């Protein structure tokens, strides 16, 4: 592609989740943290994970950072980081989702269609409780700060990396 990159949205942080499903909201909580502290050239988006619109979100972006809850056998609050532009997301850590396509499938769909951004980093936070109406569980709440600071360090050259995590 030789089309010029739109100046806005070249760096995009997408927090994925559902506010009403307990730890599933962790991606949204991180997005809010980043929005308050990120450099001005970073666009922050809250997203419900619908695959096609997710793919469209990053169509115009150069660097994309996804943050989502995952449900695997790990300890709640565990943080995972993947460079998904170069390798598929491990199946066991695929973000939770029962609909037609999950976030990991969306990434693979984008890869098949040649629509991956230049940089695609995915942060996953192990959740514990995804019940309707629940709020973030304590270990996941603590992970919000850890992931946010780590991500801010990636987004801000010169910012010292967070100690925690």
């Amino acid at each position, binding site marked *: 592609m030789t089309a010029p990159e739109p100046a806005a949205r070249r760096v995009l942080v997408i927090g994925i989740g559902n506010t009403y499903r307990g730890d599933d909201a962790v991606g949204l909580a991180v997005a809010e943290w980043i929005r308050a502290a990120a450099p001005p050239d970073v666009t922050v988006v809250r997203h*419900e994970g*619908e695959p*096609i*619109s997710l*793919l*469209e979100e990053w169509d115009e972006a150069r660097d994309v950072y996804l943050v989502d809850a995952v449900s695997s056998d790990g300890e709640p609050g565990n943080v995972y980081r993947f460079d998904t532009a170069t390798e598929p997301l491990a199946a066991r850590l695929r973000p939770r989702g*029962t*609909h*037609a*396509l999950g976030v990991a*499938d969306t990434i*693979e*769909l984008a890869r*098949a*269609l*040649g629509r991956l951004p230049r940089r695609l980093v995915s942060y996953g936070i192990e959740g514990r409780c995804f019940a*309707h109406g629940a709020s973030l569980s304590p270990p996941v709440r603590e992970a919000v700060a850890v992931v946010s600071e780590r991500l801010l360090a990636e987004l801000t050259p010169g910012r010292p990396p967070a100690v925690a995590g």
Partner: protein
Amino acid sequence: MTQRDGTRGGPVSGRTFRDLSIKVSALARVEGEGGLQVVVRDGQVTDARLDIYEPPRFFEALLRGRRLTEVPDITSRICGICPIAYQMSACQAIEDACGAVIPTPILDLRRLIYCGEWIESHALHIYLLHAPDFLGYESGLDMAQHRPDLLQRGLRLKKAGNRLMEVIGGRAVHPVNVRVGGFYRAPDRRDLDGLRAGLDQARQDALHTVRWVAGFAFPDFSQDYQFVSLRHPADYPITVGRVVSSRGLDIEVREYDQHFTEVQVPHSTALHSLLHGSGTYLAGPMARYSLNAGLLPTTVRDAAHAAGLGESCTNPFRSIIVRAIETLYACEEAIRLIDAYEPPEPAWVEVPPRAGTGYGATEAPRGLLFHRYQINADGTVAAATIIPPTSQNQRVIESDLRAFVEDRLELPHDRLTWQCEQAVRNYDPCISCSTHFLNLTVERS
């Protein structure tokens, strides 16, 4: 073909009986969580069930006591694929209860945003959920890896629908600009003109989609369905009409309760819906098309005929062609509405609350979506009933499975299981709406 009534199959003389059980405990490529179970004993299908085990969501109870103005936003949360349908049926029912009359320009804008939902929902189902069945791909992702060109077209089409929903609704998923009485803000002409080029492309993509799906190989499986949909004297039904059936029903939406009943079954958290006197019926694209094909514009009708559709469609496997035709229609209708658009002034009308019961029905992508609200004089909701299309189609899905398996007992188990799943996907069931996921069990005992 013998018509089955959904209760008994019959042994075929001379055939070696085989008992079988097909079970798919988690159906793929459907919206929500559910399963499927077919049991065959002595060559007869003894059970064919669509199990819906997704937890009930209690939306109707949740609405009680809420202000009527909150209802469109709450019910839109029932589904991320068809939120507009929920908002539109809800608004219509509340406005009916309160005796509000909505001006035509607002109704036209509602029809326009609804076209966006038809385009995005049908494109999703055709390209990502249903077409892989016909082409032997495991999934939409598998198809994308082999035929990225097709997926690009499907996604471009879907995007055109999503853009319409974003521009009019404020955002594509759970739009925020819809309110009882109309819209919070009417889009400018300029905003809609900006969609025109994308819709022209979408119309071309839809036409190519019609030609593409018309070339698929379809199992020979026609059934004598009773179709139910809305019907409007002038327009192909989307947002308004009387409730009609292929067997002579023709009623106002407010008479719905007198003709339809919801019943509970042990294997589903979604209620089954029955039509008095004749029981099982089918709602959705096949019903809409079969009851209203004559209302389609000539260009769309010509495309349908060229794709091999007659005036009705009775083979559910061919519903993918009907969805493609409806997508083409929604693109043309959206273009027509945009070209004639003048922003409604005002964008919404006051709907003063009054005590009463109101009824609303619109054509969600998957079929008739009925809402009924009892409103208190203070504008709060006293009672709510929502009957989504997947609830209405559960019985017909089960009777299809029964008839389909009975004629294909010789097939290898894995192939039969796969075809049964396909038979369920013919209906694009949205289990999230009807409660919520699907599994297939073909049990051969």
